[in-house]
C-alpha cells in the first residue's frame, strides 16, 4: 500500500538515504525510522537523495525538522540533494534552503561534508 521507500547506502562516512515515492503524513514514520536508524548507528552525516521523491507534504518536511538539531549537535547534518523541481518548490516555499544545504547532486552534498570536515580539522 505504501508507495514510499527509503534505501540505505554509505559513501565514506556519509550515510545516503534514497527516497522514493511520496512522503506524506502516512509515510513520514518510515523516514523517521530511517533517520533514527542512522542515529543509532552513529551515522550523523546524512545525505538525502531526493531523485525518486515525487511528492512531499508538510508532515514529511516535519521529519527533517525533528532531527536536524540533534544531528547538528552531534557534529552531523542532513544535506538534501537532487530534488525534483516540484518537490524543491515545496522546500523553497517554506524557506528550507535557508535552513538546510539543498544541492543539485548527491556528489555535491558529499563534497560539502568533506569540505566541512577539512575546515573543521584546520580550525
Amino acid at each position, binding site marked *: 500500500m505504501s508507495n514510499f521507500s527509503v534505501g540505505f547506502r554509505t559513501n565514506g562516512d556519509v550515510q545516503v538515504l534514497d527516497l522514493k515515492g511520496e512522503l506524506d*503524513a502516512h509515510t513520514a514514520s518510515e523516514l523517521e525510522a530511517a533517520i533514527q536508524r542512522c542515529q543509532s548507528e552513529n551515522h550523523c552525516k546524512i545525505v538525502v537523495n531526493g531523485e525518486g521523491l515525487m*511528492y512531499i*507534504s*508538510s*508532515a514529511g*518536511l*516535519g*521529519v527533517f*525538522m*525533528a532531527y536536524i*538539531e540533534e544531528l547538528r549537535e552531534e557534529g552531523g547534518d542532513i544535506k538534501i540533494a537532487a530534488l525534483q523541481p*516540484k518537490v524543491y518548490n*515545496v522546500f523553497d*516555499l*517554506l*524557506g*528550507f534552503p*535557508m*535552513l538546510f544545504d539543498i544541492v543539485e547532486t548527491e556528489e555535491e552534498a558529499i563534497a560539502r561534508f568533506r569540505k566541512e570536515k577539512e575546515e573543521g580539522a584546520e580550525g
Partner: protein
Amino acid sequence: MPAKWFAKSQTPALDSSERMRVRYILLGALWATCYVLAIGYHLLLWSAGEPASPTVTGVYHVVVLTSYGALWLLLAHLFQHRTPAPGRIFWTVLLLGILYVGLGYLVTRIPPVGLIGYSPETDLPLAPTAPFKVSLLALLKATFAFVLLLRFRDLVLVKRTKSSRRNWYLMIGFMGIAALSGFMKSPQEGVGLIQGLAIIPAVVFMVVNSFRLSWIVSLSFKGKMAISGIAFLLLILLSGMAGIDVESGGNFELVPGALQSVLYYSYPLAIFTGLAVYFGILYCTTAFLSLLFHLPTTGDYQRKVGEMATMHSLTHLVSQVFDPEKLFTTIAASPIEACSAQASWLTMPVLEEGAFRPRIVAAQSIEAERVEQLMDVRALFDEVRSTRAPLMLPQALADHRINARPGDGIGSLLVTPLLARDQVLGVLFATKEITHGFEPDDVEAISVFAAQAALALDNARLFEEQLEKERLTRELTIAREVQMKLLPQRLPVLPGVTLAASSVSALEVGGDYYDFVQLDENRLALIVGDVSGKGTSAAFYMAEMQGIFQSVSRLAPSPRDFLYHANVALADSLEKNVFISVIYGVLDLQKEEFVLARAGHCPAALIGLNGEARYLRSRGLGLGLDRGALFRKTLVEERVRLQPGDVFVLYTDGVVESRNEAGEEYGYDRLLEVLAANRHEDAPELHTALLKDLHAFMGSKEYDDDMTLVVLKWHGIEMGRAAAVESVPQTSPAAVDGRTPSETAMEPPPNLTK
C-alpha cells in the same frame, strides 16, 4: 407501603404459630392423660389381682391407642418441615436407635430384673413396678418407631409423585389396620390368620416404599460412602431390635424382653412398632445395597451434572457481553464445573513492547501470582497460540515449562485456546491434582465451552470497540464544531472591497486557518495559514494560531512585526516537527495599498484587471522553522498599490496540490489561468468558479488535504466614503465546510440561519 405489608403478613404468621403451640399443648395433654390412665389401669390390675371385665379392658386399649395416636400426631408435626438431607436423617435415626437401646436397657434393670413382670397365665402384673416398666418400654419403642417412620418418609418422598404419596399413606394405613387387627388379643396368642391377612398388604407397600431411593443419585462419592456406612450400622441395630424369633425364646434381642413387654402393654402397638422396625430394616437394606451399586457411577453422574451446569452458564455468557469482568470470571470458572478441575484461569493476549503477552484476567481456586510462580504461562500460551489446538500435559510436572513441585496441585494441565474468527482471543488453563486427570470427555466438554466462550469474548470486544468508536466520533464532532467557531462567522464589509472565503478539512478537524480582523476604519488584517500535518494535533495548533492572530494583529499589525511576534509566541509550544505556514496581509483603504508577508506559505495570487496574473512570492520562513534571529532577518514584506479590479487570492496547498484520478496536480499554472479567466467576476462568483473548476478537475476523487480559499477583490472607492465600514452578516461563502465546497460554499454558515 412496606410497613403495611409487613404488618399484614405478620398477623397470620403469629396466628399459625400460636395455633401450633395450642395444638402441641392439647396433643401433649391428651397423650399424658391417656398415658397416666393406662398406668393406672395396670396398677389397678395388680392391686385387684384378677383380670378386669372385657368392657374395662376395651376402654383401656382405646385409651392406649388414643395416647399413641396423640404421640404420632405430635411427632408428625414436629418433623413436618425438616429438609430431607439423607445423611442427617440416617444419623439422627441411628443416634435415636442407640439412645432407645441404651434407655431400654436401663428400663429393663427395673426389678424384677430379667422378667417381664407379668404372669403368663393371667396376663396380670406380678409386681407394682411392672406396669411402669412395660409402659416406659412401650413409650421408648413407639417413639423410636414413629420417628423412624416419619424421618424415612422424607427420604421416600424426595421425588414426590401422586403414586409415591399414595403408596406411603397406604403403607401407614395398612400398618394401622394390621395393628388394629390385634385389638383385645391376649399377649399369649400368636399371630393369627386375621393378623396375617392384615399384615400382607402392609408388607407389600413396605417393600414398594423401600425402593424409593432417588435421593441416592445426587449424592457425592463421599456422601454415598458415609451414608452406606450409617445405613449398615442402622441395619444391624434394627435387626438386633427386632430379634429373630421371639416365640422360641433365648434369642438375641438388644433390649431384652422389649417385644413381650409391649405385647403386654398393647398388642396393636406391638404390631405397629414391629412393622415399623421391619420397614426400617427393609429400607436400610435397599438403601445400603443401592448406595454400594451407585458408588462406581458417581463420577459420571457428577460430570454430567457439571456439564449441564456449564451448558447452562453458556447461555449466561451471551448476557455478560456487556460486563467483561463477569464474563472472564464465568469463563475461568467453567473447567471446574465442567470437568471438576481443581483450578483454572483465563489468559488474554495483551500487546506489550510489540509482542503479545498473556495476562491472567480471571482465576478460580488459585491466585494469578501463584500461577506465574508455578509455570511459564507465556511459553504455554505461545504454543497454544501457534498450534491453535488444546494442549494436554497428562504429567504436568515432567514438562520443562512447569516449575511446580509435587504437592502444588498441578498433576495434569489442560490448555485450551479460545478461537473466534481465526484469532486466539484467549487461552483457558485447567489443572487437576492427579496425573492423567483429564479424560477425552473433559477435553471435549471444555472445547465445546471454549468455542462459545470465544464467541462471547469476541462479541464483548466488538461491543467495546463500537462504544469506543462512537465515543471518538462524538468527540470529533464536538471538536469539529468548536473548530468551526474559530473561523470567522461573518465576513467584514468594507467599502470598495468584496470578499469570499471557504475552508474544508480532509478529516473531521484540520490545520487550515483563515481569519480577518478589522484594525480600524480603513484597515483590515487578514490571514491564511496551514499547520503541518493533519487531524487533531494540527487542529490544536490552528486554534493557537487563531488566538495569536486575534490578539497580536491588533497590537502589531504590520506584517513583519506580526509574523515576528507570532513566531516567538509559537516557538515554545510547537513540536520540533511541526511548523505553520502563514500568509498575512493588511489592506489599507486610505493608502490604497495591500502590504503582505509570506511565512513559508503558498504565494498569494494577484490578478489585475488587464489579465496580468502573478504570484507574490516574497521571502520568508515558515513559523516554527527557526526560533532565532534568522526568521526576522529573512522575512520580506511585499507592498502592492491597489488598482481597481485587482483580485488577491490566498489559499492553502490543498488547492494547488489537489490531484485528479490520474495523479496529476492542479498546480500553480492552472490556478492562475482560471483566476485570470474569471477576473471580471466579483469575489463570491470568482470563488465559486474556482472551486467548480477544481471540482471538475478532481472528478470523483475525495479531498485528501485540508483546503482553504480566500478571494479579495478591490473595486476602488471614492474618497470620503471610506469611513463607512461596518460588519454585516456574511452573504458570501465563509467558514463553510463539507465534502462539496462548490455547493455548500454558497450557503451562509449554519449558526446564521437559526
